[in-house]
């Protein structure tokens, strides 16, 4: 597997310095997340790591060998690296042919290609899409095909530039699940840029805070960010954010219809279109329907489990397409004997529903 070392790397575009003295080392099998605002230089850094651009100064070492930028060296190295761009550019051919591309240019035989393409389609949950033209897909599906393109060659290093930006929760959770799995099972090294702090917290072994082309800190998520303040958290998390038409009642509550025949009761009075947020730690899980003072109860199915250092985060699908994120302690996770597919009741108070 690959270790990556970046030494004193700088990049200048016609006099404007976009990266300054970047230094870091990523271990084999590590998930290294670059966090920072737009224009911080994350994309440029990833493009340099994918050898699409050369640094103005400094160097990159893969497995302790510096990159010489000969054409042969670049192709050989790129064949060990998978890259997912933020803006997906799929080829005007079928989904299968798109995914097979990396194998074809490596001269793999037909039988191998067919098998690997099928396997990878399954991984990104797009079985049945083989013959579709890739340009007819939705944004989320296209991004998953793009991920499959990069994964089919079993890269040792995966570079991801905002892989889930502008995607809906379902596609985000599929992509995050795939990334977690391949890192765990194949020990694939991952370097990912994101400005979704929750994603960084969930996936990263280490985080690099990058701002104005400089790395401002490298460490675990907790070391870098500690416990982020409530407003920051609310801003960065896309979890449990729903929108719909709200109807206010005289008792001082409102009912928000978020679609999928789901109605959420909230302790505010507001009519019209609203966006709401329910903090994951305010939701109670119950294996049975319960009678309580909490005004909201929904039945759902667990689709994803993410263990962080302090707690367990569960994704629960309610109705056809609504995904709730619930945070429970490790102990209650164990006591309730939860696993993927478990049917469960979500209970939360009307006062936990916040308007955004």
């Amino acid at each position, binding site marked *: 597997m690959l270790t990556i070392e970046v030494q004193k790397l700088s990049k200048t575009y016609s006099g404007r310095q976009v990266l300054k003295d970047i230094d870091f080392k990523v271990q084999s099998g590590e998930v290294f997340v670059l966090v920072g605002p737009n224009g911080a230089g994350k994309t440029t850094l990833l493009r340099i790591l994918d050898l699409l651009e050369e640094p103005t100064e400094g160097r990159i070492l893969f497995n302790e060998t510096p990159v010489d930028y000969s054409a042969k060296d670049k192709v050989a190295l*790129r064949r060990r690296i998978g890259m997912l761009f933020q803006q997906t*550019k799929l080829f*005007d051919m079928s989904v299968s042919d798109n995914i097979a*591309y990396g194998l074809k240019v*490596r001269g793999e035989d037909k039988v191998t290609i067919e098998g690997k393409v099928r396997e990878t389609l399954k991984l990104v949950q797009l079985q049945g899409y083989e013959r579709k033209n890739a340009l*007819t897909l939705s944004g989320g599906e296209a991004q998953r095909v793009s991920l499959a393109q990069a994964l089919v*060659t079993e890269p040792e290093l995966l570079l991801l530039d905002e892989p889930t930006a502008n995607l809906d929760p379902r596609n985000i959770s599929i992509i995050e699940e795939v990334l977690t799995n391949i890192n765990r099972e194949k020990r694939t090294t991952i370097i990912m840029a994101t400005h979704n702090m929750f994603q960084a917290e969930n996936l990263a072994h280490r985080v690099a805070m990058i701002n104005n082309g400089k790395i401002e800190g490298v460490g675990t998520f907790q070391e870098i960010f500690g416990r982020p303040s409530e407003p920051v958290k609310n801003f960065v998390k896309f979890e449990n954010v729903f929108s719909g038409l709200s109807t206010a009642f005289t008792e001082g509550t409102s009912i928000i219809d978020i679609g999928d025949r789901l109605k959420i009761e909230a302790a505010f009075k507001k009519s019209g279109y609203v966006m709401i947020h329910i903090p994951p730690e305010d939701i109670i899980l119950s294996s049975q329907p319960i009678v309580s003072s909490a005004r909201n109860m929904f039945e759902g199915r667990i689709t994803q489990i993410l263990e962080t250092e302090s707690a367990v985060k569960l994704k629960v699908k309610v109705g056809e397409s609504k995904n709730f994120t619930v945070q429970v302690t490790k102990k209650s996770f164990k006591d309730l004997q939860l696993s993927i597919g478990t049917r469960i009741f979500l209970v939360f108070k009307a006062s936990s529903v916040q308007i955004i």
Partner: protein
Amino acid sequence: MMCEKMFENTFLEEILNITLLSLKVSGTAVLIGAIIGIPIGTALGFGWFKGKMMLTRIIDLTLKSIVNTFMGLPPVVVGLVVYLLLTTSGPLGPLGLLYTPTAMIITQLIMAVPIVTGVTMSAIGSVEKTVRERALSLGATDRQAAWTVLREARTGILTAVIVAFGAAISEVGGIMIAGGNIRWVTRTLTTAIVVETNLGNFDLAITLGIILLSIAFIINLALTIIQFRGQKR
């Protein structure tokens, strides 16, 4: 009776001859134009002339400007130049090509090459960076990536050829001068319409006009279908 039938036969025969000659001249010109123009347009679209050196950049820019200028060449001027080259006292006079279909093909070829080159160039230029980088990052060699770019630009390249054919088939000034509009030999749809209208033979002029319009319609239908397919995706 007999005479009338013969006249009718000749009338149809002449129309057929004129139509086929038009298709042959414009078709051949565009075919050769594509063989020359697509590689040049490809090279320019890829920026292969654009090195790191200042001089090569100037060459690249100059070439692109020339192509863009020549895309709008006035056909009569091309006809005049070809005439001057092929006329008996001209440099290529001994070849005896003036007032032949070959002279007309040369004229339309000169107009078709910049059109095919220019449209190909912009078709490739518009997908070049994103497609090439995606291909490279998926492990393609430079050559494989270039092929992929060409493949992705195929709709644009096909458009280039169709646009050039559309321009050639409806062109009149150039082939009139270089071909001379000789009956049964170098008379095409457009030149015939000019002459027959002048002579007052409106039935023939109108018939030829309808044929020309039909060909133009088919070309545009093909273009629209191609563009519609592009949009749907």
